[in-house]
Structure formats: structure tokens, C-alpha cells
């Protein structure tokens, strides 16, 4: 072994150490902490794309009916059957004509005859998939906008899953600890509607008081609601802190909705209480003007996600600008509502499939405990190596240090995330890293016992232990990779540290430990006795 060769190898080691040190400095910025360590919310949500399909069908049903009526082929009634729309009572002679008309106008449906004078419209699967996909994409955009406006640093909001699971959205919000508010902010559809209140016959608008049960509303209408009226609830907080629900009869159709909004801000009402003001688009402003002009003195219900916020009397003609007030708002809920309205409504509801919230204090505790445990483990392992293998133990300790440095540098350059199980993976790597040293040192001892010189013993010790070291590391790597393939979140972090640690281990055990020994021999060419 020439001196030059040793020098080259030492230079390579020094270079790698410098490179790794550069890659990991400063640790706080290069190592990406998982949410379980730095705190935050991790959520997987599912977009209820069925809602979007339903909405599409409802919308189409109205237009189909209108389209048929225009040609004098009005159906007598309609029903939904599973995912299909079935129209009955079309003039039997005109069914064929109606069918071709609908085929032209509503290509997203397949139109089949259904019994006498009936047509059955089913959404084509390609179009259905398109609607579901669009709903997920729109939900993703809306959530992104809401989270951005809430002001979360470095959020992750992305689509997750493939095939039938492609309706999932992954949301990670570092540093957020109040899941209740965030879930409301992200998950509520925020679909706003304005509906006229339909007072029962024989009651003036001034006299009308909404009852506290829906049956009373029906009774007021003589037992059956008119076709264009529905009942919606309003939650009211009494002055004494009691909560109760009132039920209002309102129009089924909504002349103005949240889709017509251009902007919304938190504002103050006449008494300085929290409220939300809004700005409608020019076109919707004209419709609103018309609506308020024609219905002076009536009540106009403001409905959010099928619940009435308030139902003020129309006292003036209102155009683009208006205010939503009287909804038991707090400053925060008014701010959140304005934010949600600005971001647009969700096209469909959301289900939470998984949630992991970690408070920053818990994350900090985890980091502290993980690091303390790793350090204690490392110190004991190093002490043991020093006592058991003496000077060779120093070699093992040095190499262990380099090993951990490479592991961290690998994590940093892979931009992988360090999780709590990941810290466990590092601790485990410490224990396994010295395994290679033990294998070599034991082999060297064996060779020494056979009477070999220090140099020869080291040489054959490394050579003979090599295949064992490679085999044992590769089998562990197989398991680590299987883990990487299936693992999610924190477990993935464990698999990553373990895999990178094993690779670093191979490098240090096979190459660096050997180079350090050779350097030692080069410095003491006449070394008779190894301290091992």
C-alpha cells in the first residue's frame, strides 16, 4: 500500500466530510422536519363528487324540461332512478322527436325510451368522470385559495390517490394548531343563496313569525307546501344564551347565489357589530335591483349552506352592494365567511378520511426525547467500542460520526422529511453501523490469533468480512425498501433514514474505516501490535 494511495483516500474522505458538512449546514434549514415534529395539521379529505353529479343532474333536469316544453312536448312528471333522470308523460307520438332533440341538445346524456311516453336520460360515463374530475380540481383550487388567504406558511395541498381514489386531497398545514377553525374554513361549502320568504296565505309579512318546528310551517300552508316552496332552518341565539331553531318557508329557486359575487369583506353593521359586505357582478346587480324593486316590503332570506343567516325586510332598492348582518357573527366568523365567499364555493362537500394534528409543544417534546435517546444510545455504543476494541474503537467512533454526517447529508440532498420514527431510524442506524466494525475487528483478531502481522491481519480481516458486511446490509435494505414502498408519512421517514443509513454504513465500513487503518499503518510502518 503506497503512501500516495493512502493520501488520496484520506483526501477523498476529507472531501466527502467537507461536502456533507456543507450540505447539512445549517441543520435547521437543511433538514426538513415532518409535521409530527414541528407541529401542524395533516388531513386527507375526500371530495364528495356525488354532490357534483347530483348538481349537474338537477341543473340539467330543469333545462331538459324547459327544452321539451318549448317544443310542446312537456313531460307530465320526472323522477330520478339511481343515477338516471326519467321523464314521463310525453306525448307518445312525439317521443321519437323528443329523443333526437334531447340527443342533440344534451350530448352528455344517453337517451333511451322508457315505457309508454317515457324517456330515460343517463349521464355518459366519460362525462360523469369529467364532472367528478372537475369537481376535485375546483375543490383543490378553492381550498388552496382559502388556505392562502388564511395565511398559512408553506402549506401542502395536493391531489392524492389514483383510480377510484382520485377524489382525495392531501392537506398539510405546518404550525396550525386549531383544527376546529381550519376544518370549518376548508370544509364548509360556503354556498350562499338569496331566497324570498313565502309567507303563508292569510298572513301579512309584518305578522309572520317563523315557528320553531317545520310541521307548524306546513300547517300554516294548509298541510301541504306549494311546489316552489321549501323550509329552511335558522339557528338563533336568544338574549339569555339559549339556542333554538326557527323554520322559514322560502322559495325553492335562488335568484342570486354566491356565484354572482365579485367580492366580500368583513364590515360593521349599523350598530358596529361584525357583518360581511358584498359586491355583486354587474349583471347580477341588475337582477338584484329588479328583485328588490319588485318585492319591496317582503323578506329576503340570506342562506348559507342551506341554513338561513338572516331574513331582513327589503326596504330599499339594492344593486351591486349589500351587507349580510344579524347572523350572530363574531369578528372571526365574519372574517372567515368573507374569506370563504371570496374564495368561491366548494363544488361538493368534503369528508375527512384522516387527520393528524400535532401541537408545536408536543412536536418539540418529541424532538427533545428523540435526540436525547439517540445521544444516550450513541454514547453507550461508542464507550463500549472504546473499551472493547481500544484504539480500534476510536476508528469505529470516528467512522460512526462520519456515518451520521453522511446520513444527514443524504437526507438533506434528497429533501426527505425527518419524522419521529425517522429519529428512531437514526438511533437504529447507530447501533447497526458499528456492526460492520465488529465484524471486521473480530475477524482481524482471529487473524492475529493465527499469528499474522498487524498489516496482514488488517488486510485479510477487511477482505474476509467484506461479503458478510455487504450481504447483511443488503438484506436489511430489502426490508427497508419494502417499507419505503408501502409506508405513509412518518413511517416513510423511518424507511428513508434506515435506507440512507444502510448505504452510508456500507460506504463508511468498507471504504473509510479501512482507509483510516491504512493511514495509521502508513504512519507507523513498523507497527507490531494492533490495539484491537
Amino acid at each position, binding site marked *: 500500500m503506497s503512501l500516495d494511495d493512502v493520501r488520496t483516500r484520506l483526501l477523498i474522505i476529507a472531501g466527502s466530510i467537507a461536502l456533507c458538512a456543507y450540505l447539512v449546514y445549517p441543520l435547521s434549514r437543511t433538514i426538513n422536519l415532518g409535521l*409530527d415534529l414541528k407541529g401542524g395539521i395533516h*388531513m386527507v379529505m375526500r371530495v364528495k363528487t356525488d354532490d357534483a353529479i347530483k348538481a349537474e343532474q338537477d341543473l340539467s333536469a330543469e333545462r331538459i324540461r324547459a327544452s321539451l316544453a318549448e317544443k310542446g312536448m312537456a313531460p307530465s312528471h320526472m323522477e330520478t332512478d339511481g343515477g338516471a333522470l326519467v321523464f314521463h308523460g310525453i306525448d307518445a307520438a312525439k317521443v321519437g322527436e323528443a329523443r333526437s332533440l334531447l340527443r342533440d341538445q344534451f350530448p352528455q346524456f344517453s337517451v333511451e325510451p322508457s315505457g309508454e311516453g317515457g324517456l330515460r336520460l343517463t349521464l355518459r360515463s366519460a362525462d360523469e368522470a369529467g364532472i367528478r374530475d372537475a369537481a376535485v380540481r375546483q375543490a383543490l383550487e378553492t381550498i388552496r385559495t382559502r388556505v392562502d388567504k388564511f395565511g*398559512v406558511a408553506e402549506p401542502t395541498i395536493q391531489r392524492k390517490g389514483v383510480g377510484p381514489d382520485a377524489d382525495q386531497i392531501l392537506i398539510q398545514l405546518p*404550525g*396550525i*394548531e386549531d*383544527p*376546529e377553525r381550519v376544518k370549518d374554513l376548508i370544509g364548509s361549502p360556503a354556498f350562499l343563496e338569496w331566497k324570498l320568504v313565502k309567507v303563508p296565505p292569510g298572513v301579512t309579512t309584518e305578522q309572520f313569525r317563523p315557528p320553531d318546528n317545520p310541521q307548524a310551517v306546513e300547517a300554516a300552508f294548509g298541510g301541504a307546501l306549494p311546489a316552489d316552496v321549501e323550509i329552511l332552518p335558522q339557528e338563533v341565539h336568544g338574549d339569555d344564551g339559549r339556542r333554538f331553531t326557527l323554520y322559514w318557508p322560502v322559495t325553492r329557486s335562488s335568484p342570486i347565489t354566491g356565484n354572482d359575487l365579485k367580492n366580500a369583506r368583513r364590515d360593521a353593521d349599523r350598530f358596529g357589530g361584525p357583518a360581511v359586505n358584498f359586491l355583486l357582478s354587474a349583471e347580477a346587480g341588475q337582477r338584484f335591483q329588479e328583485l328588490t324593486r319588485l318585492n319591496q316590503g317582503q323578506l329576503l332570506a340570506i342562506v348559507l349552506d342551506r341554513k338561513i343567516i338572516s331574513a331582513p325586510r327589503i326596504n330599499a332598492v339594492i344593486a351591486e352592494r349589500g351587507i349580510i348582518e344579524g347572523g350572530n357573527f363574531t*369578528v*372571526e366568523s365574519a*372574517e372567515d365567511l368573507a374569506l370563504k365567499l371570496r374564495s368561491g364555493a366548494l363544488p361538493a362537500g368534503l*369528508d*375527512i*378520511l*384522516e387527520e*393528524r394534528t*400535532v*401541537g*408545536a*409543544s*408536543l412536536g*418539540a*417534546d418529541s424532538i427533545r*426525547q*428523540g435526540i*436525547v*435517546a*439517540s445521544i*444516550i*444510545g450513541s454514547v*453507550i455504543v461508542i464507550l463500549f467500542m472504546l473499551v*472493547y476494541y481500544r484504539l480500534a474503537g476510536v476508528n469505529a467512533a470516528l467512522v460512526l460520526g462520519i456515518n451520521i454526517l453522511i446520513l444527514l447529508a443524504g437526507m438533506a440532498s434528497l429533501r426527505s422529511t425527518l419524522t419521529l*420514527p425517522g429519529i*428512531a431510524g437514526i*438511533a*437504529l442506524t*447507530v*447501533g*447497526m453501523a458499528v*456492526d460492520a466494525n*465488529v*465484524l471486521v475487528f*473480530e475477524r482481524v483478531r482471529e487473524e492475529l490469533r493465527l499469528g499474522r502481522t498487524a498489516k496482514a491481519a488488517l488486510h485479510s480481516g477487511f477482505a474476509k468480512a467484506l*461479503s458478510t458486511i455487504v*450481504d*447483511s446490509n443488503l*438484506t*436489511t*435494505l*430489502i*426490508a*427497508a*425498501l*419494502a*417499507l419505503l*414502498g*408501502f409506508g*405513509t408519512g412518518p413511517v416513510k421517514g423511518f*424507511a428513508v433514514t434506515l435506507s440512507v443509513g444502510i448505504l452510508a454504513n456500507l460506504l463508511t465500513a468498507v471504504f473509510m474505516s479501512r482507509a483510516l487503518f491504512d493511514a495509521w499503518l502508513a504512519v507507523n510502518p513498523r507497527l507490531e501490535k494492533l490495539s*484491537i
Partner: protein
Amino acid sequence: MLQVFQRSNFRFMWATKWFFLAFSFAVVLVALAIILVKGFNYGIDFAGGTAVQVRFSEPPRLDHLREVLDGSGLGDVTLQRIGDPGDNEVLIRVERESGVEATGDEGGNVSEKVLGALRGMEAGQAGAGRADLNTISEPALRDFLAARMPAVQEASSNGAAASNAGLIAQAIIRARNAHKGLFTDMSQVTAVPGVTEPIAVILRDQATIGGFSLRGIDFVGPTAGKELLQNTGWAILGSVFGILVYVWLRFHRIAWGLASIIALVHDVVIAAAAMALTGKDFSLPVVASLLTILGYSINDTIVVFDRIRENLRLYRDLDFERVVNASVNQTLSRTILTSFTVFVAVFALFLYGGEKLNPMSFCLLVGVVFGTYSSVFVAAALLVVAHQFLGSKYVKT
């Protein structure tokens, strides 16, 4: 020179091997019985449901807490004190409701119900309905301050007020983390640098210090858990197969691969049974540690096998069982030392790694110990058995 076993010459093979093979077989049977009869204490990851971890400022009264939670219609609730007694920490676990399982709806709201119930406990006290500085997050606190800092707002532009509120919110949240996530008195908040007297007035008037802080929530819906269990099975099968093929290729004969795989399965089954027996949380990290046991306990086996192969080439005429016994003895020191260093590192995790790493490190500990045992008493012994019954065709490399 320190040496665990210098020139050890134990009789691991011959009659001894039958004794230990029988012993291992019995232990695996008992382990399987434990797993089947007692079952795992599945954590949230697999069982689904909700776990809410809360830290109280006062020592919590579990009976009262249970009453409150039972009264809020949550179904099956278990309460558990965790951490140091001084931490006043409670883990509230709500089992998955059967109705929720069917629809997948509303499961995500269980934690809200729990927190709502806890807030309700405090409702009688002053401060109900105000912003709770112990549960508010930084952006929310920033908005809270920005909306209520008229003095600052008038003095400067809107943007400055917002950024100022942002800085103060950040400082307050940092201070809260420094207080282990829980303020116990408003004076701790008003003492935060940057909280001027006008802001202190706002906080005293419109905010409150709640009696608890949220440490964490875990909710897993019904679909996620099933999928995970399935994936777990595949990962274990995949790595067993991968290791089998690797060992087979490296040692040229399938008997070596099978002997090591049987030893591995033995280790994993026993480690899993230890989890079932102790009732420790069977969570995702525990599965990770089972897989790690698979990958790690093969190491000792490979050390022994490598030496057996080497010796078989050196001593072609010697009796197979003798070679195996000698090889086991020659590698005994390193088999024990390598496991010892890993054991020490994992033991430190077990003792000091905290609540969350405890089940995982316990599982690893058991696996490491039995992995060492099985490389000698199962893997090497089975190799001899294979040689005796199948003949050298399937064993000699």
C-alpha cells in the same frame, strides 16, 4: 483484550439442536395462540377512530371528564393518563362508531365534539365565548389582534397593522410553546415582549386563558385502516420473498434461504406476540419495526451462514454438523456483539424516546433478542436438519 467468547466450543448441534428446535416450535405455537386469542391492541392507525391528546392546567379529574364526555353522545370513550404525572396529560380515545363506519361521514368531527365538550366544562367560568389563547393558532391570533388594534391601525397603514399583529402573534405563540404549550395566567401573556399595554387591555377584555391545550389529534377513517393492514401484509410478504431470493442466490441452495426465512418468521411472530401480550399500541411504526426485524435479524444468520460456507470449502471431508457447530462457535462473539450494540441503541429509545416511540422500540428489542437466538438455534440448526433429511444435494454449496 476483552473477548466475550474466546475459542468457545459449545455443542449447539446434535441433540441440543432438537431441544431448541422443539422449544422454538413450542414458543411460536404459544405466540400464535396469543395473537389469535388475545389479539393486538390496534392503535388508531389500524382500528380507526379518534384520539385526542389534551394537557390540562390543573390535575384532571378523570371521573368528571368521563361524565362530561359520556354526556356528549360520543359512544365508546376511553381515558388514559399519559406522560409524567405533572404534565396533567390525558389521551381521550373514541372508538369508531358503527354508523360512521357505514357512511364515512362525520367521523372527522368527533374531535370537534370532544373539544366542544371540554370547552363546555369551562363554560360556567368567566371567559366563555372569548378567544382562547391556549388553543388559538398563530394566523388566527394574528387576525384576532389585527381586527382589534384600532390604535395601531389609525397610526399606520393597514398593512403595517397586520404585520405588527403578525409579529405579536408569533411572539405570543412562541411564549406559549416555551410554557409547554399552556399558559396558566394572563400575566404570562402580557409579559411577552411586544405586548404593549393597549394590546394587554384587548387581551384581558376579549381573550381568555382556557384550562387546557390541544397536544394532538389522530383521526383515521374507516377506509384508511383496512387499506393499511392490507399494505402491511404485502410489505411483509414482499420483503420475506426478497430476502428468500437473495439468500438463495447468495448461497446457491434453497435450503439456506428457507432456513433463514423460517428463522425470520419465528422472530417476527414472537415480536408480534409480545405486542399482543403486553397490549401495547399496535400502530404503523410497530409494523415498521416488524419489517425492520425481518431485515435485521437476517444479519446474524448471514454472519453464521457465511462462515459455514467458508468452512465447508476449507474442510470438505468433515462432517456437516461438525462444521456448522464449529462455525457457530467461531462467530458467536460477533453474533452477540453486533446484536448488543443494536440492543443498546434501541434500549435507549425505549427508555428515553417518549410515549410515541415506546411500542416501536419495545417491539424492536424483542425482535433483536430473538433474532440473535434464532440465527443459531433455528437457522443453523434447520440447515443441519435439512442436510440430514434431504441430503447434501440441497444443502452443500
